[in-house]
């Protein structure tokens, strides 16, 4: 289980670091280093197997049902990257210990760094493209956090946002590409994908897939024209830059090229896209780097340029170019990390990174200067250093390519020019900073940094030297195995050596060095020329397009979302109409095969009344009282329809609900205007009529198509088991309290929540009540009619008795908790109407909220109670008992559940109506204007 532990350990490290807030800086650093150190030991332990040509694999089941597993692989390429990520990561953490000032939070930086390390380790060890992508996105997010570490600075936030936008967008393209790759191959397994080269390249989606994957790689590796985020990411603390822009973040794109090289490379399109992008980036960035006055800006563009070089090498059609690319990955990581660290030291000790101010640092920090000069010389490609070796190989490979057809001779020429600029900016880094007169306007007198701050640089520079002088001894194995993974076993014979004799690459090197020195000495003319060019940066274009996009979206949103609910509803109805209506036109025949039943007189009359009432409701909708009365006729007809079509429970429910609804709406009318003004234009009315009729026709047709077709239902099960399993003969009730009791529990909870919501809405309601009706007639002085008052009192016990009867018989005959609850509620509401809420409040102190809560609690407790008998939640228990005198009775736990339903319904209904009704009790006796 080694491989899984590699990312896991660094993830633990991230958590550990974030918890070290109370420790000293040394303790925090030491603790943070423990986890990557263990991971490094584990990797080195497995390294021997990888060098022997083995590919280590490991997988853990994740979601077996979906075929998802966490799978890891460690081949030569992964090993190289893992070593770089862990090794340089540890050096960076050590360095950051001295770089961070007292007021910066060290645990925060370390936690982010370790999170980032986790993401990178995840990418390079993934054996599944989706898993790879997940970690890929994690690098985008964690780099966002790292770049915005000094979040109080505006440029840090902007830089972080830009990096996230560009790499995030690239990540989406990559996801699409990887999904297509998985689609083509039929597996997301990297092993399988790498082995399916012919299949992928013969597929007609190959071009699109390649472009999408390359977009991911190029945005991450800051290739032209997506390079501009990288210089702005320099707002990050320097240790972060040293880590992200030497060995990790930007190399993730390179890793992607290398990882999928066996599957995607080898075609004309690959060479053109990868080669030309690399070439353009190489030259462009090398040129721009020279003009950056900011030390880190120079290094940023130099990084882009070197990444272009590596990309170009992957785009050259020779195996040796790939070997050179891998070699340069190592070399660039070592010299660039040390240069960033050196830049950090200079910044740290002088307070500036501006090369126009930094001069003559040699006198203040000769030791650091020496280290930086060696690293910069390696960047320039000076012999005896590792940068020289890979650059020589690069030159040699540019001579053996046909990238541009007959114009291919341009490539070595352009490469030499780029190399000359590389020498020039390296020379500027050395000469401008360490020599060239005296420093200008420094805030403090510079001196050598703390002793230990230099250790990471020393290690890296030592590596530059050792690799540069004894390449075969130090790095041959790792390059060979990595190249073996990229080239799928086709590694050519090669020998890295310092001296190849006098040949063309050496000449190119010499020209580059001479040319670089010439460019540097003549730089002031170039600077003048550069200053005369119109400033046009990627940042401006980026900012411009972002703000254009924002403005465009705002326009579109405000066009659709103009604040008019009427309009939203209209749009939604139109969408419903299209979505529901369209399939009807594709249906051959509306009517199904069921024979139609004849219309009898009763149904005809009922339907006629319903239709007339519905239309009347619409016609008089501005006369609200009449409209409401018409609506109640519709409701009544609906409940009669339920009775007619064999649904007595529904009929009872509809009838009782109808009563409370109409009472509620009449109460509401007291608080609302009793008439609507004529608001809609005739055109609007016509349009709405059109939409409404169309939807009515569509729904009616669907209903007709539905009920004339035969169907099979799961209800046979309910009918067969209602008596034996649920202990009741009223199947509808048994379904409610037993088979689908959990639904019912949810529904009474919704009821309770709605009642509570209403209660809250009515609290502190600013009263808005008329003292008279709409025609100016004052309300009757006699508030409560005597006749109703006296009858209602005697009706109460009778009504309660009826509801009790309905409740009890519900399990076997139409009735049950819902209906009984509504009947009870109506009985009480009648008392409110007859006597007023003050009269009730004197006699009955009920807290309806507690009633609702206890109802739901009883229902829930019944459900939970089943567990104590080892049965599933809400499973009914019932038995029959013989009692003297009364005879046999049935006791069922469903009855208790139904009691909960009953209590909740009573509580909720009364709470809704009583809270609203109570407000009228405070109605002013005299005139209040509307």
């Amino acid at each position, binding site marked *: 289980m080694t491989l899984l532990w590699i990312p896991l350990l660094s993830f633990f490290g991230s958590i550990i670091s974030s918890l070290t807030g109370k420790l000293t800086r040394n303790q925090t650093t030491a603790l943070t280093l423990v986890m990557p150190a263990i991971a490094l030991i584990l990797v080195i332990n497995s390294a021997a197997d990888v060098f022997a040509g083995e590919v280590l694999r490991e997988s853990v089941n994740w979601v077996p049902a979906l075929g998802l597993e966490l799978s890891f692989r460690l081949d030569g390429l992964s090993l190289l990257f893992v070593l770089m990520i862990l090794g340089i990561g540890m050096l960076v953490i050590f360095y950051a210990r001295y770089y961070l000032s007292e007021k910066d939070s060290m645990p925060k930086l370390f936690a982010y760094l370790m999170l980032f390390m986790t993401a990178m380790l995840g990418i390079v060890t993934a054996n599944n493209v989706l898993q790879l992508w997940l970690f890929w996105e994690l690098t985008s997010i964690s780099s966002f956090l790292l770049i915005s570490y000094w979040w109080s600075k505006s440029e840090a936030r902007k830089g972080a946002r830009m990096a996230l936008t560009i790499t995030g967008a690239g990540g989406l393209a990559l996801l699409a590409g990887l999904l297509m790759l998985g689609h083509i191959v039929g597996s997301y397994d990297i092993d399988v994908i790498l082995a399916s080269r012919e299949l992928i390249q013969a597929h007609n989606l190959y071009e699109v897939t390649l472009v999408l994957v390359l977009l991911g790689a190029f945005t991450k590796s800051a290739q032209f024209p997506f390079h501009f985020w990288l210089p702005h990411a320099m707002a990050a603390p320097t240790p972060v830059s040293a880590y992200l822009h030497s060995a990790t973040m930007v190399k993730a794109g390179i890793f992607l090229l290398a990882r999928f090289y066996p599957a995607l490379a080898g075609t004309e399109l690959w060479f053109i896209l990868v080669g030309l992008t690399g070439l353009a980036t190489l030259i462009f960035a090398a040129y721009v780097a020279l003009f950056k006055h900011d030390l880190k800006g120079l290094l940023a563009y130099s990084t882009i340029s070197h990444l272009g070089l590596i990309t170009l090498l992957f785009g050259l059609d020779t195996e040796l170019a790939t070997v050179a690319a891998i070699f340069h990955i190592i070399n660039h990581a070592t010299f660039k990390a040390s240069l960033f660290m050196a830049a950090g030291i200079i910044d740290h000790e002088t307070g500036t990174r501006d090369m126009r101010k930094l001069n003559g640092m040699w006198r203040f920090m000769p030791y650091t200067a020496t280290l930086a000069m060696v690293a910069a010389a390696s960047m320039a490609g000076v012999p005896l250093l590792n940068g020289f070796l890979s650059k020589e190989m690069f030159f040699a490979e540019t001579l053996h390519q046909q990238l541009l057809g007959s114009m291919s001779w341009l490539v070595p020429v352009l490469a030499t020019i780029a190399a000359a600029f590389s020498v020039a900016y390296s020379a500027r880094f050395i000469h401008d900073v360490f020599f060239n007169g005296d420093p200008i306007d420094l805030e403090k007198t510079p001196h050598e940094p703390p002793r230990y701050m230099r250790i990471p640089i020393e290690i890296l520079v030592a590596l530059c030297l050792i690799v540069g002088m004894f390449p075969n001894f130090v790095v041959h194995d790792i390059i060979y195995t990595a190249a073996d993974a990229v080239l799928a076993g086709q590694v050519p014979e090669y020998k890295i050596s310092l001296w190849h004799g006098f040949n063309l690459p050496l000449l190119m090197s010499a020209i580059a060095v001479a040319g670089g020195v010439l460019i540097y000495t003549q730089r002031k003319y170039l600077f003048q020329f550069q200053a005369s060019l119109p400033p046009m940066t990627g940042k401006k274009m980026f900012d411009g397009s972002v703000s254009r996009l924002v403005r465009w979206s705002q326009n579109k949103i405000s066009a659709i979302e103009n604040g008019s*609910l*009427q309009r939203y509803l209209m749009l939604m109805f139109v969408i419903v109409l299209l979505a529901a209506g369209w399939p009807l036109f594709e249906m051959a025949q509306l009517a199904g095969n069921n024979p*139609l*039943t004849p*219309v009898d007189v009763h*149904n005809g009359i009922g*339907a006629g009344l*319903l239709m007339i009432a*519905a239309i009347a*409701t*619409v016609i008089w*909708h501005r006369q609200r009282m009449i409209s409401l009365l018409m*609506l109640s006729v519709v*409701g009544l007809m609906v409940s009669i*329809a*339920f009775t007619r*079509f*064999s*649904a007595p*429970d*529904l009929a009872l429910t*509809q009838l009782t*609900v109808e009563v*409370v*609804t109409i009472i*509620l709406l009449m109460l*509401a009318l007291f608080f*609302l*205007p009793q008439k*609507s003004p004529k*608001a*809609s234009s005739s055109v609007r009315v016509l349009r*709405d*009529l059109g939409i*409404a009729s169309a*939807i009515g*026709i569509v729904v*009616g047709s669907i*209903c*007709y198509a539905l009920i004339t077709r035969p169907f099979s*239902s799961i*209800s046979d099960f*309910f*009918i067969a088991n209602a008596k034996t399993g649920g202990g009741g003969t*009223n*199947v509808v009730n048994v*379904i409610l309290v037993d088979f689908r009791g959990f639904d019912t529990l949810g*529904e009474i909870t*919704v*009821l309770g929540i709605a009642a509570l*919501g*209403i209660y809250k*809405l009515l609290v502190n*309601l*600013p009263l*808005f009540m008329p003292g008279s009706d709409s025609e100016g007639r004052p309300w009757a002085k006699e508030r409560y009619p005597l006749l109703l008052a006296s009858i209602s009192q005697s009706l109460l016990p009778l009504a309660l008795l009826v509801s009790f009867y309905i409740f009890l018989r519900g399990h076997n005959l*139409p009735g049950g908790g819902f209906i009984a609850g509504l009947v009870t509620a109506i009985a009480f509401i009648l008392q409110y109407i007859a006597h007023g809420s003050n009269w009730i409040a004197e006699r009955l102190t009920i807290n309806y909220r507690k009633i609702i809560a206890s109802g739901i609690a009883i229902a829930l407790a019944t459900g939970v109670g089943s567990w104590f008998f080892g049965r599933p939640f809400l499973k009914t228990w019932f038995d029959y008992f013989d009692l003297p005198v009364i005879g046999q009775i049935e006791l069922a736990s469903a009855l208790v559940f139904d009691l909960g339903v009953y209590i909740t*319904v009573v509580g909720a209904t009364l709470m*809704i109506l009583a809270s*609203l009704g109570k407000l009228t009790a405070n109605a002013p006796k005299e005139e209040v204007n509307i």
Partner: protein
Amino acid sequence: MEILYASCVGLLVACGVFLILRSRTFPVVLGLTMLSYAVNLFLFASGRLTLNKAAVLGYSSDYADPLPQALVLTAIVIGFAMTAFVVILAIRGRADLGNDHVNGQVPTNNNKGKA
């Protein structure tokens, strides 16, 4: 009879939608109530129309489909709760905003429909 039933459902939907598209809160509430009648009838009819076959064991030889009935029963009660909530919202809206227009303010003639 199926044609008649479907026509009733269609008409209720049409009336409900028309009322919902009105500009004052009270007709919208009426429209919602009407629409919920229609939806309940529609769902109920998915068990097909049967006469005199209530799903009470022992009262007939075969039964109407009880499942849609059970679902519609709770839907009716919850529909009431929702109607109540909306109507109280309308009252609150009128009290807080001073008018009962669904957009929260009565449009003037020259910028109709904008809030």
